[in-house]
Structures are given as C-alpha cells and as structure tokens.
C-alpha cells in the first residue's frame, strides 16, 4: 500500500455551490499532508468525506486501500477526527468524554479509564479532568478534542484547522503533539490557513482554492515558487520610511512593497539578508518598532500562485 489515504477527483456539490471540483489528495504512511487554503476552499468538505461523514458526488477516496463509502465501517476503525468545530460533549467532564469514546471503541471500562488518564496527562488536562468541558478555555477544548480523536490510537488522523484561535504557546503544544504522533508512525492530514504551520509540520503541501488543488509539493519546492521569506520593517519615525525602503532594495535587489501604512516589506532568499538589513539600518540610525523575517502569508502565496489575492483579502481591502 503506497498511500495511507488517497482521494481522487473528489466532487461535492451543495445545491449550486461546488465545494469540491475534483480534488486529489494523498499521503504516504507516516507522513503529514498539509492542506492549505482560504475560507471556503473546501478543506472541511474534503476531510468530512475522508472521515466517512459525507458521501462524495464524484471521484473516490480510500483509507488504507479501503473505499470510504463501500467500507465505511472498516475505515472508521483506522481513523481519528478532530473536526474544525469542537466535537466534545460540553456537559461531560474531560474524563467522561474520553472514557465514553474508549467504551465505544470496545475498551473495557477499566482500560478506558486508564487510557483517558494517560491522554489527559499527555495533554496537560489532568487538573481539569473532573470539570465539565463547558468550563474549559478554547485551548483546553481543542486539546481535549485532539485527545478524544487519539483514544483508539488511529493510523490516520485528520486535524481540521487544529490551531485556529490558539495563542502561540498553545499552538506550539499542538505542533509538538502532531510531531510525536508522526514519530509513532501515524499519518496525518492537517488543514490550515497558515503557510507557516504547513511548513513547520507537513512533508507535502496541497494548496487548494475553490475546490481545486492549485499547487502541490514539498514545503521547500512551494517556497521556491512563492519566494522564500519576507523582511518587514516599521521605522519608529514614519518620515524615514523611504530610507528603510532604500536599505531593503539595496540588500535584496527587489523593489520593496508597502502593504500597509508605515511598513515596507521585501522578499529575500536567505536569512543572511536579514543580518545585513539590521546592520545597515543601525548604520543609518533608523530606529524600528517592528522588524521581522517571516514566511509569506496565505494571501501572498495565493498572489504568487494565481496572480490573485484571496477573496477574504479582497473583502478586507474593499
């Protein structure tokens, strides 16, 4: 078996909306596939089909070589799902939620309790274990949700935007969890709106928009297309914006852009450029309130791939 899961030409329509217009996704066992796309791209729809919750209108999908429609029952034994919207029971405590799932996965009650305690400890929820989930913070719910999808030690795990709305520290926790799952041999499908997240975790990335894959490759190959990194400078004194832009132009050899007021950015190829920018800004005595080296945003990725901004960015701009 070459792929842990595979979708070929998936089509899904809701009335006149085409959520998926023939999408291909696949991951080899023990790897992470990042599915990157803006709101409404079809990420959740694709995940729901692969998780046997939705029937496709066209195309096919398999998990472990088994068709998700014809062998749904057997596929369900292999998968774990953390949906985009919390799928824990708010009235049940953390422990009760996990024990219930253990029992539904045919663990004996005693075993289910052990497994629940294990997972609660692993996700730093032991203290909150006896409280109803509705008293949990957003981050705690997300972690409980992730724990719930791991009770049965699934081979294939779907994580639908697992870090949206989390602060950076909590996000790092989830990232580490994903890494350790993969180290244990699981295959992960992770949807996200952040190139940074896909870059940090994925072995391969599929960029989707309007229900189609518009780019696919390793993070490195994708970054080669969309430009590696971006340097952003916000001078303390707005009058020196032009000077800062001059520095960026000189170092990178590209014409800097000003995406918002008081800020200039320019794509660069390596982090050597960053050191050089810092040096020159210092030499010219340009104080800064913000100076960063970052990966392109989703909007910038889309702009590079399609020559268009994402719809959301257009709405914001309009």
């Amino acid at each position, binding site marked *: 078996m070459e792929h842990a899961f595979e979708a070929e030409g998936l089509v899904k329509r809701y009335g006149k909306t085409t959520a998926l217009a023939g999408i291909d996704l696949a991951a080899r066992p023990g790897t992470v596939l990042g599915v990157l796309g803006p709101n409404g791209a079809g990420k959740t729809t694709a995940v729901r089909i692969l998780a046997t919750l939705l029937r496709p209108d066209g195309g096919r999908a398999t998990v472990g070589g088994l068709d998700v429609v014809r062998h749904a029952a057997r596929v369900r034994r292999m998968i774990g799902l953390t949906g985009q919207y919390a799928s824990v*029971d708010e009235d049940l405590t953390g422990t009760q939620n996990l024990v219930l799932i253990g029992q539904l996965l045919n663990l004996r009650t005693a075993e289910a309790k052990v497994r629940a305690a294990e997972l609660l400890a692993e996700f730093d929820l032991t203290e909150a274990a006896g409280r109803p989930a509705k008293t949990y913070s957003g981050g705690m719910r997300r972690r409980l949700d992730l724990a719930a999808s791991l009770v049965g*030690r699934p081979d294939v795990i779907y994580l639908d935007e697992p870090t949206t709305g989390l602060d950076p520290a909590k996000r790092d926790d989830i990232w580490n969890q994903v890494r350790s799952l993969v180290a244990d041999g699981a295959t992960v499908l992770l949807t996200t709106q952040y190139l940074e997240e896909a870059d940090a975790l994925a*072995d391969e990335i599929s960029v989707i928009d309007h229900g189609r894959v518009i780019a696919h490759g390793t993070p490195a190959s994708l970054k080669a297309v969309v430009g590696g990194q971006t340097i952003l400078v916000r001078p303390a004194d707005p009058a020196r914006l032009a000077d800062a832009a001059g520095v960026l132009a000189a170092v990178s050899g590209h014409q800097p852009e000003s995406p918002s007021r008081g800020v200039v950015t320019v794509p660069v190829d390596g982090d050597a450029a960053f050191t050089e920018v810092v040096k020159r800004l210092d030499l010219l005595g340009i104080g800064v309130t913000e100076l960063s080296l970052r990966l392109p945003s989703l909007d910038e990725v889309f702009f590079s791939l399609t020559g268009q901004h994402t719809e959301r960015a257009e709405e914001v701009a309009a």
Partner: protein
Amino acid sequence: MTITAERVLPAPVAPRPFGLVRHSLALARRSLIKTLRSPEQLLDVTLQPVVFVVVFVYLLGGAVSGSTHDYLQLLLPAIMVQTTVFGGMATGVNLNTDIRKGVFDRFRSLPIGRSAPLIGSVLGDLIRYVVAVVSLFAFGYVLGFRVETDLLSALAACLLVILFAFSLSWAFVLVGMLAREPGAVQGIAFLALFPLTFGTSMIAPAATMPDWLRSWVAVNPVSHVMDASRGLLLGGPVAGPVLWSLFWSAVFVLVFGPLAVRAYRRRT
C-alpha cells in the same frame, strides 16, 4: 524519501461481543449524566403533571365524580400515562438539537452501530419516566390517592406505563430526525399528542362523549394503556387492556425504531 514507520502500538480495537448493547448503554449513560447535570430538564415530568392533577381534580372532580377523592382515584392512573407519553417528546427535541453538534460527528466517525446513539438517548431518557411516575405517586399520596390492589399490580402498572412511553418515544425520535429544528419537533409532537392523550377517558367517562369521539377513544392505543393502568391500580378488568398495550408497544418500536434509524443515516 521513504518513511514507512511501523505502528509501534497495537490497535486496541479487539472485537468483543454484544457491541451494540454495550455501545448503547455507554451512550445511555452519557444522556443520563446530561439530564442529571441540568435537572430543570425534568420539570415537564415533575411540575407539569402536578399542575394538571391540581387543576383537574379541583376544577372537574366535583362535576365528574361527585367528589374530588373519587375523581383523583380515576385521574391519577391516567395522568401517569399522559405525563410519560408527553415526556418522550423531549427525547426527540434533544436529539434534534444534538445531532447538529460536533459530538454527533464524532459518534458517526466511530466504528459503532448506526443505531447506537439513538438507542442510547432513548434508554437514557427512561429516567424521565421513572421520575414522572415516582413524583406523581408521591404527590397523589399527599392528596389522598390510594392503590386499591396490591403492590405487585401497582409495580406492573408502572412498568407497563414506562414501557409504552419508551416505545412511543421512537415516534418522537423519528420526528426529531426528520424535522429541521427543535421547535418543529415540539410543534409536530404536540399536534399528535393532544388527540392521543385527551381523546381518552382520562378526564371524563367516554359514555358522555359524541359517537365519533367515542369510536376514536375505543381504538386509541393510549386509551388501552390508561385502562390497563386503572385496572392494575384500582382493580377491574386488566387482561384485555394489558395485551392491547403490549401489542401497541411492540408495533411502535418495530415501526418507528427502524424508520428513525434510517432517517438518521440519511441525515448527514
């Protein structure tokens, strides 16, 4: 690049017998916990029947039976049926709310029988009927209600009433699966429940009713259960009404159960 890591951990999902029963019971426990965590959900099976009893006994008791005590004796076994039958409506309403939440997505993605979440809810809501029966007896006792048969018959009456309500609740589950929103479930259920519970001899003897209504009372399944409940608690003929009650209970489970499960499967 070849990463083909072997799974380090064994899959714990070993087959064990009676899966559907175990899964349904685990899910029944879930709904029990939910009910106990918000006891105000039990108001419809505690406060509401008490209000009905008070209103009917003191408003109609003198007119119908000549004395409030005689009327209470006749009314309470019937109100017990009405309350439990109405109590099943909440199962449909709650399920309709529940299936839209993420937690039902999780159940659907697990390797369990499709019917388990529905059976679990219906079983867990048995607590509602038990609470209804117990609180009605307690309140009736305070007002002067007395069982005129024996303890065993009284127990049989309670079990029969609960069984019937359980069976009929599958119809509400079906409505809960088909309706778009909880309000609609309630509307449809009320529409069906009024002729079912009031088209009986619950508050007045059928002999005083017009012909068309009397023929409805005669075939209405709920009438049979009320007759059986009166027979078992007060004495009088029981065999016929009990058999009819059991017959209708079986019919409701066998018809509405599979239909509800089918509607649940289709609804994704």
